[in-house]
């Protein structure tokens, strides 16, 4: 059995075949774009960063002697005079997950060379990300207004504010960087850089629609991390 995509490459069944494919010459991941492989490995490394943050959070939360604040009270939002727990955060999560959907569609239209749809969907994704960052800024300012600081807060253990601002801040930075790149890619798609194979400003390398997918990988990762942060901070 040969791989139809790669000339001269034979596939063999079983563990031995897998070992042979993995160790074969030229590439380990057959047909995988360099940039895509790079993004996957970068995300693996970034996973370790967020894991370290979250494990540190678990350790800090369980070892601090002071009482941990009750998240459903701290993160409640007043809607028409009634405090609704997790309202804002539910909206934020919804917006971010939706933006993952638009991103996935953008990738699809990108590969179909549907320049316009791809561009609009990237724009929608960027706006979703921007909305998320905006709502996070609102949440931060609300908590700061209520007296929560990185070094102390009126609800209990000081580490609550420390970990909250640090981890959501680090995630928010990821989202913001993603938004900046989404806007850049949006411009590049609308300007047709990927159709013409125009060389990048900095890298001098030819662009391709696969870059949209690479950015998409990053964007989905940022969303996935948010799910974990959501679970650890708001539901625990």
């Amino acid at each position: 059995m040969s791989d139809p995509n790669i000339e001269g490459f034979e596939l063999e069944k079983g563990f031995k075949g897998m070992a042979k494919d993995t160790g074969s010459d030229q590439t380990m991941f057959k047909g995988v774009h360099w940039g895509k492989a790079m993004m996957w490995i970068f995300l693996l490394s970034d996973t370790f960063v967020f894991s370290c943050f979250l494990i540190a959070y678990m350790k800090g939360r369980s070892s601090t002697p002071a009482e941990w604040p009750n998240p459903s009270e701290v993160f409640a939002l007043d809607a028409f005079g009634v405090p609704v727990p997790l309202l804002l955060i539910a909206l934020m999560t919804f917006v971010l997950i939706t933006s993952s959907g638009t991103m996935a569609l953008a990738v699809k239209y990108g590969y179909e060379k549907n320049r316009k749809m791809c561009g609009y969907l990237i724009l929608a994704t960027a706006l979703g990300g921007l909305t998320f960052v905006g709502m996070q800024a609102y949440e931060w300012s609300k908590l700061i207004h209520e007296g929560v600081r990185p070094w102390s807060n009126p609800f209990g253990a000081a580490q609550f504010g420390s970990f909250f601002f640090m981890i959501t801040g680090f995630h928010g930075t990821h989202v913001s960087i993603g938004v900046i790149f989404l806007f850049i890619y949006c411009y590049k798609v609308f300007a047709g850089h990927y159709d013409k194979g125009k060389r990048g400003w900095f890298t001098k390398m030819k662009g391709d629609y696969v870059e949209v997918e690479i950015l998409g990988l990053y964007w989905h990762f940022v969303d996935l991390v948010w799910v974990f942060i959501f679970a650890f901070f708001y539901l625990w």
Partner: protein
Amino acid sequence: MSDEHENKSGYQAQSSETIHAQSSEAITGSGSGIAPDMDYVRPAELPEQDLYHPHSFIEKWVFCQDAKVIGVQYFLTAVFTGIVGLILSWLMRLQLGFPGLAGFITAEHYYQFVTMHGMIMVVYFLTALFLGGFGNYLIPLMVGARDMVFPYVNMLSFWMFFVAVVVLMASFFVPGGPTGAGWTLYPPQTILEGTPGHGWGILLMLISLSLFVIGFTMGGLNYMITILQARTRGMTLMRMPLTVWGIFTATVLAMLAFPALLVSSIMMTLDKLLGTSFFMPTILKAGEVLEYGGGSPILFQHLFWFFGHPEVYIVALPAFGIVSDLISVHARKNIFGYRMMVWAIVGIGALSFFVWAHHMYVSGMNPWFGFFFASTTLIIAVPTAMKVYNWILTLWRGNIRINTVMLWCLGFIVTFVNGGITGIFLGNVSVDVPLSDTYFVVAHFHMVMGIAPLMVIMGAIYHWFPLVAGKMLNEKLGKWHFWITFLGAYSIYFPMHYLGFIGVPRRYYEMYDSPYMTSGVGLNEFISTAAFIVGAAQLFLVFNIIKTMKTGKKAEQNPWKANSLEWYTSTVPPEHGNFGDRLPVVHRWPYDYNVPGAEQDYLPQTAAPSEVAHTEVEKT
């Protein structure tokens, strides 16, 4: 690019088993080949790499995208930090050997020297030198690529490292001086008043470390993807030189271990700047409770050593890989147990993530944890010992050239065994507790991750200098350099084991008239003298390089008669793009030395099976 044109169809049916292994059947794994064309290698999967050639002096030598130039830039920057680290160690030895002789070294200065020496040598010197320096230079050449896969990111990686070094060096000149918290930066004392450099010093250190991690990540992605996805035709994973395997595995470790360093740096920066208490417990100082409270100092230790222990192997694995290649080339014999060597490298790398708490036996932990971490630590001795046996078996009945490169390799094996065996002492909880924080520990880790990798670096410099500079280093000077360094290093670290046994604690500015110093004083003077001599002996190398560049013998192509691809470039030194018009096609592993039946004692990786049909090459 098609291979049909270079097939030697004149090959007759005299194929033995060993030759048959080189046929398309073995390479593609298909059983359908009826008349195997023995030189067949699968066609190229990828188009030629798009390279951006420099247009100006700055693009060529400063913001250069060529991995070879970046490698040299990394090398020189790392060596600069290494010289700073060396001078700091001299100052420490001056104080320890001859207390009070240099009046300007106060206790605070001493702690700052200890800290900066440690951090510089481990992170900014050894890691950057092996991965940034040798990695950048050798990976594309050895796997047969034109360049790293993301040259622009690679360039950014170096400049991020450069900025990290500038920030680090700036901490020598800020108010309060560099941090003096010890290279492990244990909180809470690191950021509290009373520790030297608790203001600007520690801040710059943490910023510099974060920049280093960011810069390394950019480089590391390049190294990994180049090795995984940009090898030349015929270069299977199991035909890669062990140097590439060592650097690759070390890079994987770094990509997974540096996140812990980044996170702990960020958290400590916040503790320092914003007054958070991630690592800060409730502290009483002069009867007053500080603002901090509720944090966990042990958490920092776990994060730090989750980085810190793999870091040891980030330094050691490239050294293992490089030394394997050097020994094989200069003993004119194939490396003994290549597959075992590869799996040992990978195994050591994997195990290194499960041993970190052996640095924390005296921090207080559940005895079962001590049991677990002692077991995993001692298990690492198994693959490591396999490697040592294989190096020795490679030498066994080899056609050994006792040149400078080989001397450094032999020096490495001896030193590494020495440091490894003391590691078995320290890996056991009950033996470690009394030896903890004594000079025994200092002797151990300097032997195993200081001197041993340094020996490999020196060997590698003498080995690859003809490739990089196109001239042969002087052998006579090289041998002087080796013997003084080798004997001197043993004079420094051997007595330290004894100091540790009699209980001399490390990181002490002065021993005053403690009882054990009756026998320790003379030794300390001896160690310090040896340290000055060894440090000065490095000038042999500097002088050698200057002399060689001026009047040295021009190197022929492939002066060591080696097999791996870096010696088969279109020009020496290699130009941008490495291999001229056509990328090499690989037919074998790089260790075919003294193959029975071959005309020469080496078969380059590019030698096609039909050219060597009458030899008994191994199946690779």
